């Protein structure tokens, strides 16, 4: 089993049914949950589940809130192409935790909408001992944003 970085397929469908609202302030709330390296979260993940999630001192099942200080933005590159994008406005931080079993993925999900999955992001396996785990976000622009919807 392994985790795979991906945009969740169900999320793409749910965009077409106006399920998710990333608007700052008035939109939905999103969270980030960490998953063991032995878990299987990927494009087929439809919602947050405790199965395969990390556990340990200081970590609450479901993970932590994702800070959404910037609403999604969009830019047209040409008459036929453009990009819409969104990135959490702050690092996702798990403070004072002990996570002894290796983990390598974070699932971003919509805690306002039945914990529906958004995306999976992977990194090299980590453990944390009486410490802090921080996920720093990429630059929120057309090429680097954490989540991009693009036409070419």
């Amino acid at each position, binding site marked *: 089993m392994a985790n795979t*970085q*991906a*945009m969740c397929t169900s999320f*793409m469908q749910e*965009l077409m049914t106006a399920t998710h609202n990333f608007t700052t302030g008035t939109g939905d709330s999103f969270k980030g949950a960490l998953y063991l390296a032995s878990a299987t979260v990927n494009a087929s993940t439809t919602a947050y589940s405790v199965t395969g999630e990390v556990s340990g001192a200081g970590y609450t099942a479901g993970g932590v809130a994702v800070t959404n200080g910037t609403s999604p933005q969009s830019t047209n590159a040409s008459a036929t192409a453009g990009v819409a994008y969104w990135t959490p406005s702050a690092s996702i931080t798990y403070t*004072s935790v*002990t996570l002894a079993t290796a983990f390598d993925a974070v699932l971003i999900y919509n805690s306002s909408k039945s914990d529906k999955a958004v*995306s*999976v*992001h*992977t*990194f*090299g396996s*980590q*453990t*944390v*001992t*009486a*410490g*802090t*785990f*921080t*996920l*720093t*976000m*990429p630059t929120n622009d057309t*090429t*680097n*944003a*954490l*989540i*991009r*919807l*693009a*036409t*070419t």
Partner: protein
Amino acid sequence: MALVTTTKGEMDESLLEKKEGFVDNDNEYTTWVEYWLAGELVHRSAHVTLKKTVTLSAEAASFN
């Protein structure tokens, strides 16, 4: 005197062995720090900067 949170409570950094490292590849830039006491890991923190985006590609079909 810098204090470090450890499995044994707050400890003076000078009493501990410090190890640091990093990973830099296409997907991430990660740094980590460990503190050891007499061969025992008593603190480990990691800081991951994600580099790779996930992209949804969208298309509009034509009628010709």
